[in-house]
């Protein structure tokens, strides 16, 4: 039994990728859940907001690269990120002004808001296509690895290797910082408290003199910032392809619902729950099992589900939560 090699393989193929992916989902789910908590609808345009924001970030990145500025070993996209967020936030605020505000004032059924967000999704999707096209784009300059498989093998003398990509570490650090900042903001500052009050009980919040327009504005800005950060990190980690951002909508919604819609802490936990289940269920466990039980020669790859069905995992988690705990793990908004 070779616990050390098994552990390293587990780290390399499951824990590290799942943690990075989980962090990206957590950021996205935070955005969805905040928008849900304050504006009270599931924003179907969120995936395309991520894509559009990332497209802006990539374009600014190209401009910065053309100027010859780089922050090696970090990717240039990091400098471009604030610009991407600013442009996207302006567009989203404009969208709120011309689309959502009307329905909000009329207090329509949430499902009409969802429908409106489908319209916004179409427009944003088209904008992204016009801006940057539908092909795969890599924009991760800077160093690729913090340490690679070969480095680790030489250092540790183990047969199994472990690598850590810069984008993965960056994802984890940025996510931690953003979550910390967001929770401090929500719990300590006046505006953050106003947002929570508005989310808990709209009428009572209005009665105590909270400006609803400001709360909505701040929510859109934060939600968009989260979307663009998540989108850019996802793009750095994998590649940028507009359609992937539509597909990632499902795991993000699943994460938000698992954690309890409207509950920020739940969204973060939900993101990691979904990511770890997805990676663990689609990982072929044969290698790890081979180290743990050298005498056992299993026939298959010991893969519970092939990678193509990773979306099925978020779906099943979603169904399980809906069946047994519709309000989510952390009490979110109920039915």
């Amino acid at each position: 039994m070779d616990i050390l090699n098994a552990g390293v393989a587990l780290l390399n193929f499951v824990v590290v990728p799942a943690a990075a992916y989980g962090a990206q989902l957590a950021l996205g789910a935070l955005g969805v859940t905040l928008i849900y908590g304050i504006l009270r609808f599931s924003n179907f345009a969120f995936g395309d907001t991520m894509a559009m924001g990332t497209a802006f970030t990539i374009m600014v990145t190209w401009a910065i690269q053309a100027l010859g500025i780089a922050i090696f070993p970090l990717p240039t996209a990091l400098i471009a990120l604030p610009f991407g967020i600013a442009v996207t936030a302006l567009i989203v605020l404009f969208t709120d002004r011309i689309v959502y505000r009307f329905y909000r004032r009329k207090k329509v059924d949430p499902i009409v808001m969802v429908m409106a967000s489908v319209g916004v999704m179409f427009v944003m999707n088209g904008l992204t296509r016009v801006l940057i096209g539908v092909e795969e784009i890599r924009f991760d300059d800077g160093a690729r690895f913090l340490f690679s498989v070969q480095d680790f093998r030489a250092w540790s003398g183990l047969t199994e290797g472990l690598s850590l990509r810069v984008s993965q570490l960056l994802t984890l650090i940025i996510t931690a910082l953003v979550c910390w900042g967001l929770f401090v903001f929500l719990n300590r500052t006046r505006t953050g408290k106003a947002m929570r009050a508005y989310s808990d009980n709209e009428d009572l919040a209005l009665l105590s003199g909270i400006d609803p327009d400001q709360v909505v504005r701040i929510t859109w800005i934060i939600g968009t910032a989260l979307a663009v950060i998540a989108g850019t990190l996802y793009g750095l980690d994998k590649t940028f392809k507009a359609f992937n951002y539509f597909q990632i909508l499902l795991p993000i919604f699943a994460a938000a619902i698992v954690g309890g819609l409207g509950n920020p802490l739940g969204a973060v936990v939900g993101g990691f729950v979904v990511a770890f289940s997805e990676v663990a269920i689609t990982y072929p466990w044969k290698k790890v099992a081979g180290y743990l039980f050298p005498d056992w020669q299993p026939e298959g790859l010991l893969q519970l589900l092939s990678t193509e069905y990773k979306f099925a995992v978020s779906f099943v988690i979603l169904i399980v939560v809906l069946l047994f705990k519709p309000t989510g793990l952390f009490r979110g908004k109920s039915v």
Partner: protein
Amino acid sequence: MSNTRQAEASSPWRGVLLFLVIVVLFVLEGSVRNAFFSGSWNTSLAILNMGLISAVMALGVNMQWGYAGLFNAGVVGFLALGGLAPVLIATAPVPGAWDAGGVRLLLALFVGIGTLVLAAQVWKQVDRHLRVWALIATLALGFVLYRWLFDPAVTAIEANNTASAGNIGGLGLPVLLAWPVGALFAAAVAWGVGKVALGLRSDYLAIATLGIGEIVVAVMRNEEWLARGVKNVSGIPRPVPYELDLQNDPGFVARAAEWGLDPATASGIWVKLCYAGLFTVVLLLLILLAELALKSPWGRMMRAIRDNETAAEAMGKNVTRRHLQIFVIGSAVIGLAGAMMITLDGLVSPSGYNPLRYTFLIWVMVIVGGSGNNWGAALGAILIWFLWIKAEVWGPEIMRLLTMPLPDGGLRSHLIGSAPQMRFIAMGVVLLLVLRFAPRGLLPEK
């Protein structure tokens, strides 16, 4: 929603007028050749056929949204499920596929479904303290047994004549029989999803259906034993004559010559007209049934539930039950459309199932046409489909006109080049405008 649906007098001529507009558009497409129209009846009829199928899809979505206010974000999945039926029913059997692993495969699917049913029973019957563990044990055992049966069967079937088949094959029955079967496939899955997601928040259904849509398409893409996955199944039998047979038929060639058409064009037009007739019959039949249902006590109950769930519940109506019913019926209609589409194409190509095109565009059709009104949904579908297809041609032309003042160069060619993508923006804007300024659509509900 009730405030947007108040009856206001709308002219009875509106529908007729819209219908005429659509007829004029198709006639222009068929007869005028310029930068905007192709002037080919073959193209015009091809657009019409897909428009008629879109109308059937829109009818299904309209039942769910217009009658009951249910948001189905997985139309593409139900459509793909329906498309499976022509493959499994109408294509010729693959020699050796059943012997390779057919029985074992059926057994595996039976075990899979049996496990879920058993798990539900375990959850209901077993004592509170034990039931979580009993449930997990049942599911784990069922999964292992399922994989033990399923994996070798799939390997055997896919190994059978991989180059040209490698799938389980069809039954060789008439293709028209596949249409209701497609509806059944979609209905069965809709029942499962609805059972879980209905009765909770309205957007949970939207998210759950979004998921099932993705999964069905993923299954179609990866399960080669089913419909050859991305290798596509082609040559699905047709309910109408083949162009080549017509061209070899002297009687047909003579008649085509009478009309002054060459045999190739004439055969294409004739085949498309046959399809159009078939689809129109199905569409009209569905609209008739839907209208009859809507005028019956059942239809009044559905509208009452949609307009005020609480009041309807107080009257003793089982809202969740009725929602499940309409969700299943609507999905069945979408499944039917999926089977029709595959019959028209003669080809299953899972990579073509794009949610924007097959879920959200159908939504635009329904909203624009008039949610709650069957004629409106059908008209909206044909109109939007026509515009969607033509926008690919019109976009660059319009963009060329708009960018006249710009110098020839990078920006102008980029704008013209990406103009076909602008139709996504156009559709989004149309949806938003209709939703806001005419929420009842072109043909409002009476």
